[in-house]
């Protein structure tokens, strides 16, 4: 897979697909058994180039007894920043993420969400060209998620590159320019979001919602001459039409079944639908031999 410079790149996959492993290999934390990694066009490891890379690992960790500001300065120093520079930048970031009142507190006094923000700051302090975030939004409340999303979008807008891994498709769909979906350590899909949606459209996707007669609706969704695949949520569904079928036939069938349609819309396939179609249920569980995967 290739990550182009600039923009937001999503590394997607089910649990155990190898997302974290891929990222840890990028960062030179584990060594690949086979294959090659090159960063910024040079065949050098993540550690050599760490001054240009910001890394938020999946396993969050900070020194519990250290004060927030001291900790950020230390993280900055490990990236090659001078103390004074690191201190100034850390203060700006703390202010921006609403943590300046906590800068003198010990890390262990902070809530988990705050600690995560501190670590997030830690990987951005040195203005890296490439920001690698492993599951950046897990464990954050909606407000904090929003704050972090804004920062990520801004970084991408400045022409820098963000690579993040997630298994939450809605988020990836809204943020990413490009995605790669991997499963069981294999690449399944690779491309820009638009390309992927075009390629995966098939006979057409319909988003629908209904208000009654759920049993009758379910029977229609199981009709394989009409519908190739359905992502059924009970009162709503996203379906892919079977080859040869069209949306009119589906609509007629639904009206006939009297399900009280509240939504019927021909849509582009959602990333979620593509993901499930491509990865399938059999690939959700990782093969057992991958013992190093986080």
């Amino acid at each position, binding site marked *: 897979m290739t990550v182009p410079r600039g923009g937001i790149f999503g590394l997607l996959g089910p649990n155990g697909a190898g997302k974290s492993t891929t990222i*840890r290999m990028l*960062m*030179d*934390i*584990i060594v690949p058994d086979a294959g090659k990694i090159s960063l910024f066009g040079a065949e050098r490891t*993540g*550690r050599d180039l*760490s*001054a240009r*890379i910001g*890394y938020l*690992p999946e*396993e*969050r*960790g*900070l*020194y*519990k*007894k*250290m004060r927030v500001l*001291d900790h950020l300065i*230390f*993280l900055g*120093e*490990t*990236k*090659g920043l001078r103390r004074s520079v690191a201190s100034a930048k850390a203060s700006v970031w703390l202010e921006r993420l609403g943590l300046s009142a906590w800068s003198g507190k010990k890390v262990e006094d902070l809530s988990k969400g705050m600690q995560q923000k501190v*670590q997030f700051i*830690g*990987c951005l302090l040195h203005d890296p060209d490439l920001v690698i975030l492993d599951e950046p939004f897990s464990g954050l409340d909606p407000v904090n998620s929003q704050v972090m999303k804004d920062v990520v979008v801004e970084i991408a807008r400045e022409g820098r590159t963000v690579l993040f891994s997630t298994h939450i498709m809605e988020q990836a769909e809204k943020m990413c320019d490009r995605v790669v979906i991997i499963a069981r350590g294999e690449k399944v899909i690779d491309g820009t979001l638009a390309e992927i949606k075009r390629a995966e459209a098939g006979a057409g996707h319909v988003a629908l919602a209904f208000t009654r007669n759920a049993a009758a609706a379910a029977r229609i969704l199981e009709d394989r001459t009409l519908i190739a695949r359905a992502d059924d949520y009970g009162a709503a569904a996203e379906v892919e039409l079977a080859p040869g079928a069209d949306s009119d036939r589906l609509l007629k069938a639904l009206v006939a079944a009297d399900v009280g349609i509240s939504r019927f819309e021909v849509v582009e396939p959602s990333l979620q639908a593509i993901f499930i179609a491509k990865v399938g249920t059999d690939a959700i569980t990782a093969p057992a031999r991958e013992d190093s995967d986080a």
Partner: protein
Amino acid sequence: MHKVWAVIRREFREKVRTRAFIIGTILIPTFMTLLIVGQVVLSQRDTGLRHIIVVDAAGGEFGSRLEAALRDVKLGSGDRGRTKYRVERIKAEGRMEPVKDSLVRLVGTSKDSLSKLDGFLVVTEAALDSGRVEYYGSNVSSLTEMGALQSTLRPVVLTERLVREGVSPAMVQKASAEVSLETSKITQGKLTGESGESSFFLAYAMTFMMYFALLFYGIQVMSSVIEEKSSRIMEVLASSISPFQLMLGKVLGVGSVGLFQLSIWAAAGLYITANVAPILALFKLSGDSATGVSIPSVSLPLLGVFLLFFVLGFFLYASMYAAVGAMCSTQQDATQTQQPVTIGIVVGLMCMFPLLNDPSSTLARVLSLIPFVAPFATPIRYSVAPLPWPELLLSIVTTVLGVLAITWLASRIYRVGILAYGKKPTLRELARWVRTA
């Protein structure tokens, strides 16, 4: 190097700020002061005056000689000391048992410290033959008091026996004049002015300091590594600092904390021993009775050798402790795994005794060449007598080589270990770590 420096500074600042460090740093000098003050307080509060009755059932002048000898015993040294015993003598020939019974009832009954009876000695003819003098008293459990009493008795009994054999008392006194061995140390053909005792004390103090520092600070390196593993910060660090830089920074950081703390203690110790009198004055005590605390002089070359081997030993053991920390995921795991490392330090400590006995034996020479014990052996031997240059150099070279080999090995274990969680590696797995790192 900038990164290593950052790790050192973080380690130093965070360690020095901990409550444990501050309390430990203050506590040791406080203990030293209290020890000196306490000693003086005890010796001054205890007037030491003992009221003793000599029950004299022996013939001749035995009883009166004993009485005189007891009266001569002084508290403290020199002529200004006060007498230790208030002595009365009761002649008790023939009515031994009733006298004893009545005295038993008297011992320790009076509240007034002056008239209080502390005990009584029973002197009989039989005692002269058997050498067994009976003492009954309230202070028999004090080893020092009984020791003092016994050493007063011994010459009196001896004199009495000799006098009865016809030797004149003056002759006895002349013959029993004390003999003492005054030791002076010669080093490289020069008198050093040190006594044998003080150089023993020096080696002892140095060795214990080495032992304590290697163990205490080594284990701090280990727990610091485990903390990084268990708080999962290792992964962030490992993405920007190489494991070797991280280990080096950690060992140097904790090492500098150790040197810092030790020099505070050393400075405080020097200050306290140099200012015993003013410190005692603070507690409204006179310094007269303070037992002379003398510090043996440490020659500069010896200090150099000690420091050099301290640094080498610290690198050796701290890197092993770091590797142990990297192998384990919890403190409990580590307590077991570190045992082989700790045994090395304990063996080093044990070497002290044979080395002091004969610092130039073959055993001593061999010990100086083994990197694990050389940090103990070589300074000890040097403190007794400076080693010839070739031998010292050889010891330094083998130790440095050992340190390099062990740090290399430890850093490879560390490299793999810091990111491995879960169960401890077996020896076989460990060997694989070393090969693949």
